[in-house]
């Protein structure tokens, strides 16, 4: 089940989340993301502008890739479970790139009936190069 529920007790340290493989990046998605996010930097839309800026062509908004990473977490743990997500944008995402988001449980803690799982998260392109790296905290229900 895609939008499954994960219980705190069922997630050991070292467990990996279900990888999320996104569709190849297309210009229309960057245009849509610009409209949805309000980030109209032409460097994500206009190839000539991006080349003149020394970037070798259009590349995706970092925030789009971060959105993919957030989706990988909520697909796995459910909507509304993410408490913290922090990332570094480690590489540019280009048109036609296929991004896969992954994550691994680093630690677990429980306090006052709140059950938190800390994860290492990352997104990589089709060459296996990491384009986003970071950490996330999700709150999971307990079988308690």
């Amino acid at each position, binding site marked *: 089940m895609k939008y499954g529920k994960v219980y705190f007790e069922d997630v050991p340290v070292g467990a990996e989340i279900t990888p999320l493989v996104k569709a190849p990046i297309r210009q229309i998605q960057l245009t849509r993301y610009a409209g949805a996010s309000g980030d109209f930097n032409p*460097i994500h839309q206009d190839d000539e502008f991006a080349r003149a800026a020394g970037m070798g062509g259009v590349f995706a908004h970092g925030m789009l890739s971060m959105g993919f990473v957030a989706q990988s977490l909520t697909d796995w743990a459910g909507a509304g479970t993410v408490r913290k997500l922090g990332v570094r944008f480690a590489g540019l995402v280009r048109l036609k790139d296929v991004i896969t988001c992954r994550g691994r449980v680093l630690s677990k803690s429980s306090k006052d009936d709140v059950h938190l799982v800390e994860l290492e998260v990352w997104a990589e392109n089709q060459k296996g190069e990491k384009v986003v790296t970071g950490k996330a905290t999700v709150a999971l229900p307990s079988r308690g």
Partner: protein
Amino acid sequence: MPIQINRDIVGKEYPPFAVTVERGRIKDFARAIGDANPFYLDDTVGRASEWGDVIAPPTFAVSFRDESADSGAMLRDLGVDVSRLLHGEQEFELHGQLRPGETYLCRTRIVDIYEKAGRSGPMAFVVREMAVTDRDNHVVVTMRQVTVVRL
């Protein structure tokens, strides 16, 4: 010849601005990411959920902007052109859910600017924070953004 960045804006707070979350904006944002989660997109699923309505995806607050202000204000303050910007880092802390129809107050400030030599030359890192509070003045989201300026 590297450009100079205006470091005088460290500590600057921008005027607080209110954002009312529109249902359609949540859905546009989720669809732009390609995230079909029904808790964002399906009002029936949202009504039956613990929140009583759809909620926004975790990174939605990045779309919050002061619509009455000039979007180039920070760039002008820094004295740089948009073509020099890269997104370095981004962090969200979520204390609750952003919901449609609710109005939030956003406060943004520049917390730090530092320079480093990067692979492709000198760079400045501009650290900005935004706090999003609800009607009861509870912090719902805090956002920390590091923008890289190629000098």
